[in-house]
């Protein structure tokens, strides 16, 4: 009896301890939750604007509802189809060529035996990843303007000068290639880690059997990298609606709106600068919803095919 009492007392004390810990845990969550409510969840109510004729002076509660009017208008605009196409072409180009170059580069870099050279090259190719597009836009304009280095090289070899920044056919390739240039080094980090995790014994055995370097890359290195390539490909799915606002905004001009305008720059220009708040919100909402569907499907696919997940 006495023993029982002591036991339950102990248990109670323990329970209290956990309960007080839980109270502390709640307190710890509060500051972050408040910020989330203000800056992430309150704007979600602002989505109502997409279904209104929002007038800032009247506010969300005073503005008239118009139903799906803005969405109907959006899909009737020839602009929006073009903007959508631009966004997807630019984003897919970045994902595909960016991953390809990063994979090739990591395989080549892994072959470099000179420690000093390898370290130096890594230091240099990671650098652009950390620089702002504000800075890099100046670098790109400096290289690709009519009198820039690239055009000097073209004329030296007898080609015509090309107006990379002002031509609707050249602008998308320019955006894609400069982004690949900025990110390939840093993207190679993960692939390099995957390569170093491959059992070196496989390579030795293959060498003894007389397999060439090319054959070893094809039959050992690439299959070893495949899980991580697959994972990153799946996880890049949500970014097909992300053309890269900072880059495009800093490089485009009215001359190349036709092929350079992406969803984010369009919302900014029409919605915020043009003060078409409701229409801009409608376009933004459309992007958010598709983006969310893409993230959820990417997460499910990653779970299914690679046993990893984002959250």
């Amino acid at each position, binding site marked *: 009896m006495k023993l029982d009492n002591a036991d339950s007392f102990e248990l109670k004390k323990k329970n209290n301890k956990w309960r007080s*810990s*839980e109270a502390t*845990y709640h307190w*710890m*969550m509060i*500051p*972050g939750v408040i*910020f*989330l409510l*203000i*800056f*992430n969840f*309150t*704007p*979600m109510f*602002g*989505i109502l604007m997409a279904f209104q004729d929002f007038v*800032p002076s009247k506010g969300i509660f005073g503005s008239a509802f118009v139903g799906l009017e803005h969405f109907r208008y959006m899909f009737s605009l020839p602009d929006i189809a073009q903007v959508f196409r631009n966004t997807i072409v630019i984003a897919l180009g970045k994902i595909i060529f960016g991953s390809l170059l990063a994979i090739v*580069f990591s395989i080549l870099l892994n072959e*470099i035996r000179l420690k000093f*050279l390898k370290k*130096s090259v890594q*230091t*240099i*190719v*990671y*650098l*652009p990843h950390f*620089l702002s*597009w*504000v*800075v890099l836009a*100046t*670098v790109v*304009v400096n290289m690709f303007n*009519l*009198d820039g*280095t690239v055009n*000097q090289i073209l004329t030296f070899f007898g080609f015509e000068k090309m107006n990379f920044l*002002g031509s609707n056919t050249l602008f998308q390739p320019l955006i894609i290639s400069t982004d690949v*240039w900025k990110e390939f*080094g840093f993207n190679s*980090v*993960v692939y390099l880690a995957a390569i170093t995790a491959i059992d070196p014994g496989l390579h030795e055995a293959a060498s003894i059997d007389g397999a060439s370097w090319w054959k070893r890359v094809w039959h050992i290195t690439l299959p070893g990298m495949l899980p991580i390539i697959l994972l990153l490909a799946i996880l890049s799915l949500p970014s097909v609606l992300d053309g890269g606002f*900072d880059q495009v905004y*800093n490089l485009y*001009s009215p*001359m*190349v709106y036709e092929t350079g305008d992406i969803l984010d720059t369009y*919302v*900014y220009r029409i919605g*915020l600068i043009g003060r078409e708040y409701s229409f801009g*919100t409608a376009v*933004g909402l459309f992007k*958010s919803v598709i983006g*969310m569907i893409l993230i959820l499907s990417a997460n499910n696919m990653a779970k299914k095919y690679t*046993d990893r*997940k*984002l*959250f």
Partner: protein
Amino acid sequence: MVKSKRFSERAGRFIIYATVIFLGLVCLLPLWNIVAISFSSNEAVVANAVGLKPVNFTTKAYEMIMDDAQFWRSFSISVQRVILSLIINLVIIILMAYPLSKTKRHFKARSIYMNLLIFAMLFNGGLIPTYLVVKNLDLINTIWALVLPGAVQVFSIILIMNFFIGVPKSLEEAAIIDGASPIQVLLKVYIPISLPALATVALFSIVANWNDFFQGLIYMTKVSNYPLMTYIQSLTIDIAEMINSGNSNDLQNISEVSNRNLNAAKIVISTIPLLLIYPFLQKYFVTGIVVGSVKE
């Protein structure tokens, strides 16, 4: 036969080295060109004569920046922003990651908070509603407009949470038996052991805040309140457009073009803080990306 194989192997090795060095140079030289331009005279820059070596070496652009009050005002706004964001981000990351690293048995409401965070990561109100919230809070033209909307970094919180989950439970139990409170356990056990991971998310915050120009652009209506990247962006965009339109030889534009070495110098100075922390960036970003970005 053997000889030819050795030759082809050596040729292959040469091609590999050449390609890697070429890619390194492709990354380095355009950046180096900007540095050379910043040390060259106006005339040489306008004539496109500057390659990798400054032409008519001069530090005049840098001397002009020394007297440019707006440049340093923007510089100091960016420094303040980075420091404030860093403190707020880290405090919230640690405060939220720790309870979330507990099991459901020890923290019953965990899944509610977790869903809240994930939903905030998945879905957002978009540019215009967020802008209107900041505006209605009267944050426009204050530094808080640059700091508070990004106070909760969900990705970093999840990264640190995963790191905390991996901390051996025996350490925590030992501390609890010694009578430590949850806060003490966090301060004495979790934080010291997670310093490398915390360095990673701290650097995420520093780089993102230093490099961002967009929030400065939409939330600041006066140039005097611009952070550094927004200020530089406002200077260079006109030139980009002018060069785009293809009339860089117009006489009236020459004066603007000659600002190119000045702008180059501004860009070089704006990059120096990042170069100072670059060794840490390389060390912790790389490990952070490889270890923590996805969970098994």
